[in-house]
């Protein structure tokens, strides 16, 4: 089951590109380009059908090829381009509950073998306007449905899967960094130098784990597809003590933060869910619930290392607090 709207947009764009290709057919690389365009092919059907029970209690028949028999098996870069069939992953972040505890950051760093200073998940301190109180704002990759980073990539090293996840194949990346500048949310980071941890080949590389890293390639939050395949939640979701982050499947209309499972549509509609910088037209798959009825005072977020506090020194609110000697 696919989101109809995206499918339609996708084919329109493909049609347009094919037309452009035909008129520019004299390009040297024309042939290989065409081959590349058609590589986003549908899953091959094996013909063999298997009966499974859906979460809402219906018995359905699916193709045997669509079933992942070995959830913990290594997913090669080639396989990781396909995505998990029939899924459409979304994240909902409840800003009213975040207090910059940074467990999401730390557990993510641990799982992706990141250094202390490398974060896939960043926590910003935003203030919508002068009258509004500032709030903590966790920022993962938004896995947009119209991802600018995927459009600009010259080699297809970063790609959008059918299940909505945007991944990076760092064996394909040439380090041009166009994706970094094209992301309006500044999500992407870069391996500037070689590190000993990259040599650790205990686990073979998979774009689904983003481990091990590789010098001169780009990196970002991957929505932890390796965990999803095992039926677990991404590390940031399961580690958050406040249950700030909900994760789930839009097709099932369910999201969970590990403690409570709620309907995605109800959560968004009842609590005024929104996407950040909607006007850019990138169609993110990460939604935010506004920071109303806060559960914690903002100051609780400054209960962190001195070095971390320094990272917010340009925020007017922090400068104010420092003057008053409160931090």
């Amino acid at each position, binding site marked *: 089951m696919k989101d109809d709207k995206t499918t339609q947009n996708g084919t329109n764009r493909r049609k347009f590109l094919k037309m452009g290709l035909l008129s520019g057919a004299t390009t040297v690389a024309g042939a290989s380009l065409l081959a590349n365009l058609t590589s986003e092919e549908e899953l091959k059907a094996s013909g063999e059908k298997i009966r499974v029970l859906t979460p809402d209690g219906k018995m359905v028949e699916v193709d045997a090829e669509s079933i992942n028999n070995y959830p913990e098996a290594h997913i090669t870069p080639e396989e990781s381009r396909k995505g998990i069939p029939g899924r459409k992953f979304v994240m909902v972040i409840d800003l009213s509950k975040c207090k910059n505890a940074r467990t999401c950051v730390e557990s993510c760093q641990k799982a992706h073998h990141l250094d202390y200073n490398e974060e896939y998940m960043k926590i910003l301190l935003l203030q919508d306007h002068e009258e509004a109180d500032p709030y903590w704002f966790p920022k993962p990759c938004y896995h947009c449905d119209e991802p600018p980073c995927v*459009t*600009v990539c010259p*080699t297809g090293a970063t790609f959008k899967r059918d299940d909505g996840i945007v991944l990076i194949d760092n064996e394909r990346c040439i380090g*041009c960094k166009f994706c970094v*500048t094209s992301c*309006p*949310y500044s999500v992407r980071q870069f391996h*500037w130098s*070689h590190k000993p941890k990259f040599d650790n080949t205990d686990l073979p590389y998979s774009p689904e784990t983003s481990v091990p890293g590789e010098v001169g390639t780009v990196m970002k939050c991957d929505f932890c597809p390796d965990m999803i395949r095992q039926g677990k939640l991404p590390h940031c979701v399961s580690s958050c003590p406040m249950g700030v982050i909900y994760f789930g499947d839009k097709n099932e209309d369910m999201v969970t933060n590990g403690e409570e499972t709620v309907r995605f549509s109800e959560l968004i509609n009842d609590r005024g869910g929104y996407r950040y910088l909607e006007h850019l037209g990138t169609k993110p798959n990460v939604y935010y619930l506004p920071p109303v009825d806060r559960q914690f005072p903002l100051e609780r977020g400054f209960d962190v290392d001195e070095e971390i506090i320094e990272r917010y020194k340009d925020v007017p609110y922090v400068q104010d607090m420092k003057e008053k000697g409160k931090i």
Partner: protein
Amino acid sequence: MDVTIRKKELVKEFSPMLLKPSKWSKIWMAILVAFILYGLVALVVQLTKGQVVTGMRDNVVWGIYTINFIFFLCLSYSGAFASGVLHFFNTPWKNAVSRIVEIITVVSLIVGPIFIILCMARLDRLHYLFIYPRIQSPITWDVIAITTDLIGCLLYLYLTFIPDFAILRDNSEGLPKWRKKLYTSLAIGYQDTPTQRRRLHKITKIMSAMVIALAIVTYSVLAWIFSLTLQPGWNSTIFAPYFIVAGLYSGIGVVIIAMYLIRKYFKLDHYIRKAHFLSAGVILLITALLYGYFTFSEYFARWFSHKTHDANLLETLFNDYFWMFILANYIGILVPIAIVFFKKLRTIKTITFAAVIAVVGLWFNRYLIVVPTQETPYLPIQDTRPEFVHYSATWVEWALSFAGVAAFVLFFMLLMRLVPIIPMSGIIDYEKKGKVRRDGLTQQQQP
């Protein structure tokens, strides 16, 4: 007038330039080679340690490599444009400058792309651009456009060289053997017969129109790399024409500087006259006005509508980059205009001075387009290492930038050792038409 005798005379006049490098040109070449070697050391450092040795970090991922890339490509573009126009409309005084312009076009088109390659972190995977190309990406467009442009410009340059190769092959005595062989093979049997002459003229004319189109396409694609992204300050509809006008401005500046240096060091005062500087000065004035107009509209619209993100960008420009902004967008535009606007101020030296300011100002203008935008993205830069926030180029980047400029000048000097910088065939053509005096200038253009 006997053409054969005249050819011999011309070869005699120009051969010291080709064969006997002066003491100064040797010293200059040694200095340039030293700069290039220093750049190569920096390159080795960058290749072994990775881009961590540059000033680029997670927030500012494109630094002065990208700026140099745009800068050199815009020289090439404007060179192609100018030389195409000169050839296509058969401008009467083109002969003295056309070859300078053509060489600038090709040399900068060779040096420019080196910088974008330096900006890529995985040079060992460069061939992936051709193995796994994606036509959606503006970088793929850029690769196609630049390679086409490069081939077109090289072809064009070569076409304009052929008659001179033939003259050098037939008329020079005491040439080293390898040079004679080189000229013979490069002249590809050109004997200056009427048929050959007509054919060559036709092809050159077609190519001169082609390179104009190619240059415009290539430079527009380059501008789109910025204007197609969603970043504040880059996502601008006027970037392509703006870049093209800016390219013309800096290109004409470099042509003037090259004319000045060549005239001075090779004593070519009777070929490159004041009239050439005055005409180039007027073009500089026109492009400066256009460029100033585009710059003003670009910033004025952002300032007047003051969307939050545009306002943040302008605040960065006027606080962190105040002096650079003044230098690039006030001094770099207004001073050349002031100099060339008043007839009394137009001398060879002042026009060259205006050109230097224009070129330097334009480099900083590119810097202000590329770097500050990356320092003020939509979401404020927080929760990141303090040393990752601001960009400043390191010695590696500077060494490679100067090596690039040195390579540009060195290639130029080497090409000048291959063929005379003033096309001999062109001189003969004009003298044949009888319109021109022996010094290569028409009466009414005498200053």
